[in-house]
């Protein structure tokens, strides 16, 4: 009893402090006269129209349910929503911005078990696994970006090099990056063959998803080695901007690809919408580009390329009014349905549902490439989670983040850095 009081005092103190910085959520109205008002947490509604699109589409299909979006600050979303959850003031439906928080939210008793909803979803929905703990589902994915290879067709033409054909291993990619750099340099261009952003996911995400047997929770990270060696060689040969330059000059990937500083770039599919907007608005140059599947670990996966990405999903607040529960479950089933996916595709969002209708709606937007490989790259792939579910995932990613900066800055050899990561795993994770 006393313990709980202290905990509450702590929660009150922290939520009080955060309340001063201007956050807060509304409890939805309780149902009256057959109409139900559901609240959903969202962020940056101005630039993230997906929430309103889902709300409107659901309301159109279910006129007696109104969905209201509660806006949070995007950068501090996780902290703010946690404060609201522990204060019992969070919306009925909670958007899970980063899948890796699911574990602490679910074990903290904040999310309802919605296995009945998720297990009834059609098989063409991917990403639900990121919200499952020991076979219990806590979230339904509505959005699933995955990493693809963007390439600048104009620069490839100028260099006289064949476009990616969807059958590239990483060695083919490295060779193309070197050839492009040399040919573009000879043609008087400053552009490099490839750009690899400084995030740890640009390298570790692929190594983790593609290498057979790779497992973040195993504490064995040898599988990173070939990926690092390949990229360090590219960096030393000048075929891509060095990590030092990227981090000290704060290069942005949007400018590097959009301003034609690099001919190829692996990036999440969210960048499609950004690039289209920036080309329209003049922030990016006007050039022809295409999308190819990401290079593979070996030729065995060319038919169904393996890539990675984390979904965005929604769960139900454990403190929801029981009268609204049924409507909330309907809403979650809806956001992961093909109807919703088509609506999302129209505004350039890659949904968790794949299918011909979704792909057709997505590529009907103006400014997108129209070739078959681009369409295939966006619709045919296996997307593994970047952050598989587990209590220790945050701590493991922190350790591997340090490995990434140590190796990429060439402060430490690949072997030493991997050995250190494994030592730290032993020391810090398995306590």
């Amino acid at each position, binding site marked *: 009893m006393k313990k709980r009081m202290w905990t509450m005092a*702590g929660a009150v103190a922290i939520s009080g*402090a955060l309340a001063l910085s201007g956050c807060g959520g509304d409890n939805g109205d309780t149902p009256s006269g057959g109409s139900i008002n559901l609240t959903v947490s969202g962020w940056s509604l101005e630039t993230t129209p997906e929430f309103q699109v889902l709300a409107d589409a659901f309301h159109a299909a279910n006129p007696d349910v109104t969905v209201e979006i509660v806006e949070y600050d995007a950068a501090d979303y996780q902290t703010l929503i946690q404060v609201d959850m*522990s204060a019992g003031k969070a919306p009925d439906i909670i958007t899970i911005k980063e899948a890796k928080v699911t574990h602490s939210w679910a074990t*903290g008793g904040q999310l309802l078990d919605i296995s009945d909803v998720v297990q009834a979803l059609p098989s063409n929905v991917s990403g639900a696994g990121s919200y499952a703990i020991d076979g219990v589902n806590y979230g339904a994915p509505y959005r699933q970006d995955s990493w693809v290879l963007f390439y600048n067709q104009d620069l490839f033409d100028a260099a006289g090099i064949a476009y990616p054909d969807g059958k590239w291993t990483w060695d083919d990619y490295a060779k193309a990056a070197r050839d492009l750099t040399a040919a573009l340099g000879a043609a008087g261009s400053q552009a490099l063959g490839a750009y690899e952003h400084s995030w740890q996911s640009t390298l570790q995400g692929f190594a983790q998803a593609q290498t057979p047997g790779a497992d973040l929770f195993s504490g064995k990270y040898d599988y990173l080695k070939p990926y690092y060696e390949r990229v360090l060689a590219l960096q030393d040969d000048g075929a891509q901007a060095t990590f030092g*330059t990227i981090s000290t000059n704060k290069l942005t990937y949007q400018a590097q690809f959009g301003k034609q500083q690099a001919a190829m770039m692996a990036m999440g599919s969210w960048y499609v919408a950004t690039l289209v907007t920036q080309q329209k608005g003049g922030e990016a140059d006007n050039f022809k580009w295409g999308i190819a599947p990401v290079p593979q670990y070996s030729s065995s996966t060319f038919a169904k390329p393996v890539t990675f990405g984390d979904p965005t999903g929604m769960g139900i607040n454990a403190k929801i009014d029981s009268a609204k529960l049924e409507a909330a479950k309907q809403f979650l089933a809806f956001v992961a349905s093909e109807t919703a996916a088509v609506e999302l595709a129209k505004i350039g969002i890659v949904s968790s549902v794949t299918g011909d209708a979704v792909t057709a709606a997505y590529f009907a937007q103006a400014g997108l490439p129209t070739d078959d490989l681009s369409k295939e790259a966006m619709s045919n792939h296996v997307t593994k989670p970047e952050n598989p579910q587990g209590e220790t995932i945050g701590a493991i990613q922190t350790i591997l983040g340090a490995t990434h900066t140590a190796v990429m800055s060439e402060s430490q050899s690949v072997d030493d850095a991997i050995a250190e990561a494994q030592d730290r795993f032993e020391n810090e994770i398995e306590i």
Partner: protein
Amino acid sequence: MTTVVEPGLRRRRNRLRWRNTVSGWTFILPNFVGFALLTLVPIVALIYISFTNWNAFGAADWMGLKNYTRLFKDRSYRVALWNTVYYTVFHLPLTLAVSLGLALLLNRKIKAVAFFRTAAFFPYITSVVAIAIVWNLLFSPEYGPINQVLSFIGVDNPPRWTVSSDWSMPAIIIVATWREMGYYMILFLAGLQAIPRELYEAARVDGASSWGRFRNVTVPCLRPTTFFVTVMLSIESFKVFDLILVMTDGGPGQSTFVLSQMIFNKAFVENQYGYASAVSVSLFVICLAITVFQFLVNRRIER
């Protein structure tokens, strides 16, 4: 022999004492309420949380000293502690020397002294994010102006600064010193101007050299200021956070990973508020111990 106090007198005296207590409390009340609500309660809650495994939600299990024993075994904690000490050991004397030097320089009657004083203070009032971005550009290993100057004057392998695990901490220390020197310079200037002029005149009459005057007049008279600056600087150094977060984010590897960043990561990235609180308490104890030590040393010198 016992003094017999009249009942009436005692009552009056009690009333006076009561009135004094009430008025005393009234004076400190506004400040105390703010302090209690915004500082004391969170600190007490923090100490409690450090003995639990609280993960931001209701359920917190009592862990006893488990978080603290884990602290001693945690390699990252040792790395963070070592880096924090490394930063403090170099940053503290360097900032002290530079800001005292600046204060001495700008305590003379030179032209445009107000301009120079303001200029030295500028870094302190500039946004730390802007500072970090600009210094990162300056430190850029391949195209940065600093390394270009170094290669121009014949340094073969200029340091790779913020992207080298050996040079990232020195780079941070340089920027931090540059940023904070103006603030401590102002404190030293105030101290310098409080030194009575007569002392210098007397020393000059006695034939003391300028070094002698500095050694025997300036330094002893500045001691209260120096003490204050040292205490503030050591606490600030142990708490270093924002500059490192924006400049290197603790990297490359763990080369600039400090205690306050460990607290931030454990709490807000990994949701281990209990463990993060234990790290905070340890940081608090370290700062307290250093401050107490400094006070003891100061008192001994004073005697």
